[in-house]
Structure formats: structure tokens, C-alpha cells
């Protein structure tokens, strides 16, 4: 069993989706994340174990390599595709057992800002690390974050911004969220954001990369 978990983690790490997928070339014609997940389920392994012992392990390795510039966005996206091939099979099991995910993360690009690649990458990484992700999209107002947080009381909120001007909206939104419920945790990120700004606006975490957000969530939520 351990061997199968490791093989699946490897497929996620290197973006091997399924047997037909030609990527990565050194795994051509080998089984991918889709087949291995199916096999594990057939052997009666729980969806939760598959997630924790294989998928998250693989995704975490990708996150670390991305942070260290050892892989780039396309490789991360291939891993996300492999993750999807596995999650499609696991999701019906989670639907019967909602407690099996580590927590909920609500993410959006702040009001006034339409950039979404960075936000999407964070969203994929967090999801791949075992959290339910509610992606509110771009140009998201404070009220929308607050409404989502009300529906998901323990959720952590993630805000992304790519311009210094929209960082002002990040501040407004963080203040509004905290005013509504001071216990809501807010993470911030995006090219012009930094630790000093995070502290000044009263957010709880700044990460320059998706893996940092995952690690923060693992420390505080999971």
C-alpha cells in the first residue's frame, strides 16, 4: 500500500495525469494519478487516506519546488491537472463525509483588481493540500467576503492584489472583515504586498508564494 501511495504522490509531483498522458516523457505509458487513485479506492482505502498520504504529499513537494524556482507555473498546472484527475474520484466520498477536509479557504482578488493568475495558483495549491476552496473570483467587494465567511464560520479568508492602488482596497476589506468578526483570519498576498503592509492593515499572514499560505493554514487551521 505504501508503495502505491508513493507512486501516486510522485504522479502528482510530476504532473502525470493518466496513462494516456504523454507527460512527463519518462513516465510514458505508465499509470497516472487517475488510475492509481482508482486502484486505491478499489482496495478499500479511504478517500481521506488517499488525500493525506499521497495527494497532499505530492502537492506539497510541488509547492516547495515552485517557491525555490525549481519548477515554474506550467509544471504546477500539470500537477494541478493530475490532482484533478484524482479528486474527481474522491469528491463523491467527501460529500458523504465533509469533515475529511482540513478546513475551508475563501479566496478572491480584491475590489478594483482583475488579475487572477496569482490568485488561481494559490487556490489550486491550497485545494491540493486538502482544503475546501471557495473562489470568489476577481473584483470582490468586502460584503461578498463577509457573506461567504458568515456561511462558512471557520473559514480563513485570502486576499490577492497586484497593484499598489488595489492594496488600499485590501486594507479596507481587511478592516471590514475584522470589524464584522475580529476572529476571522485574513491572509494576504500578491506582487506589491509585503510583511510590513500585512502587519499595518491588521491581516494575519502574508506569503510571497502559495506554499507559504498552505504552511500558514497547516499551522493554524489543520
Amino acid at each position: 500500500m505504501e508503495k502505491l501511495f508513493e507512486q501516486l504522490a510522485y504522479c502528482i509531483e510530476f504532473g502525470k495525469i493518466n496513462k494516456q498522458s504523454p507527460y512527463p516523457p519518462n513516465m510514458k505509458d505508465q499509470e497516472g494519478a487517475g488510475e492509481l487513485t482508482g486502484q486505491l479506492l478499489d482496495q478499500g482505502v479511504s478517500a481521506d487516506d488517499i488525500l493525506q498520504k499521497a495527494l497532499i504529499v505530492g502537492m506539497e513537494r510541488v509547492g516547495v519546488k515552485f517557491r525555490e524556482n525549481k519548477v515554474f507555473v506550467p509544471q504546477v498546472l500539470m500537477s494541478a491537472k493530475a490532482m484533478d484527475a484524482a479528486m474527481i474520484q474522491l469528491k463523491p466520498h467527501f460529500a458523504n463525509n465533509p469533515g475529511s477536509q482540513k478546513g475551508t479557504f475563501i479566496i478572491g482578488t480584491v475590489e478594483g483588481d482583475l488579475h487572477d493568475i496569482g490568485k488561481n495558483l494559490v487556490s489550486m495549491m491550497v485545494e491540493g493540500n486538502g482544503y475546501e476552496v471557495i473562489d470568489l473570483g476577481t473584483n470582490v467587494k468586502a460584503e461578498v467576503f463577509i457573506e461567504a465567511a458568515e456561511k462558512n464560520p471557520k473559514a480563513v479568508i485570502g486576499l490577492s492584489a497586484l497593484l499598489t492602488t488595489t492594496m488600499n482596497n485590501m486594507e479596507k476589506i481587511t478592516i471590514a472583515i475584522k470589524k464584522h468578526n475580529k476572529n476571522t483570519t485574513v491572509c494576504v498576498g500578491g506582487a506589491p504586498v509585503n510583511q510590513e503592509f500585512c502587519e499595518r492593515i491588521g491581516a494575519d499572514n502574508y506569503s510571497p508564494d502559495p506554499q507559504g499560505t498552505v504552511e500558514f493554514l497547516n499551522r493554524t487551521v489543520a
Partner: protein
Amino acid sequence: MDNLKTKHFTFQLKDLEISVELIEELARIDDSMPEYSRFLKEEIDSTLSLSQIEGGYTILPAQLDQNTIHIGDHCFNVGKSIANKFTNSTHIAIFTCTTGPLISDRLKELNSQGLILEAYLIDLLGSVMVEKAMDKLQAIIEAECTSKGVNITNRYSPGYMNWDVKEQKDLFAFLPENFCGIKLNESCLMTPVKSVSGFIGIGEKVRFIKHACQSCNSTNCLYRNSKNHC
């Protein structure tokens, strides 16, 4: 140099000479990755070929000091390092350029089909398109200036170095409303997203300084030290 009115140009995607290899290189797609060159070629040659790529500029007299550029009754606080690059400028070309909305529409479509890698490549293609169109616009400005015996500086945009993005509001005040179909929101974000704006200095004694990653403070930039940038 005489004050000139706003000039407007449209560009065809095929004339921007964007190679599939360039996009793959910027995306850092290496030989081990699945084949995306056919997809990119199809997008460039067909799907996105109708993109409404446009740009334009106006040239106005300007006065400079250590940190600022005065144009008409507006004072642009560009910061010392950008102001330095404009040394000896007597005029400024205020420009903007866009790929048009087609790229964003295509991105939405690809994302909604779960084609995330394809969407990423198209996003990157859009960024390259607007920069390449800007190269063309800059060449037009240069040709106009050289024919009048003056030189140009490189281009600089609000939001870079110490020049506040907020000053885009003042910049756009010099261009007709809805110029090139570009709208500026409260946060000074331009839509279509793949748009740029900025200044080019003009004068007999100005110097053209090539961009160098080492002198930019954006240490986490996507293009930093890439062969095809700067």
C-alpha cells in the same frame, strides 16, 4: 517641437511577429512538457487574429526637475530614478496601448473549460502582445522624432520604480475619453487588462537607456533575467 494632437494606430497580431518559441520560453515550457506549439500557433494565426490591438500618443512640452515632470498644469511625481532617465527632455510623448478585450474573453472561455495551462499561455501571450505593440508604437514615435532632428528616451510607466500608479489618472487626462477603448477604474486599473500607459522623453540631447533587470526593484518579476526580456 510643435505641439501635436493625439495620434492613433491599430496593429494586426500577425505584424507583431510573436513566435510560439518566445511564449514557450517565457512560460519556461521545456522539451519535456506536452506539445503546446500547435495550440499557440492556432491561437495566434486564427482565434486571436481579430484582436483589436491599438495604441496612440500625444506629444506635449514638459519641464523637468529632480523628481518631477511638469506638463501643462499637471505635475507628475515620477521619482528621482525615472526623472533621471528623462534628463534633457523638452517634450513628453504620453502613450497608451492595448490588446483589446478578445484576450480576456478567450481566457474566460479556456478557464471555464478547465484548460488551465492553455489559459496561462494565452495570458502570457496577451502580455507579450501589448509589449510588442508598444515596441511598434515606440518605433513610430521615434521615426517621427528623428525626422524632426530629436531623439527619444526609453518608455516608463506609472507603477514602476517610485512612480505611483495613481498618477495614471493625470496621464489619462491628456488623452481623449475612452481612447483606444481603455477605461480606468477607481483604482487606476485599465481595462482591457492587457493595457499599458506611460511616458517617452523627447529632446535633442536625451539618452536612450536600455532596461536592465538589476536596476528594477521588482525582484520577484516573472520576466526577471529572462533572455527575451529587457
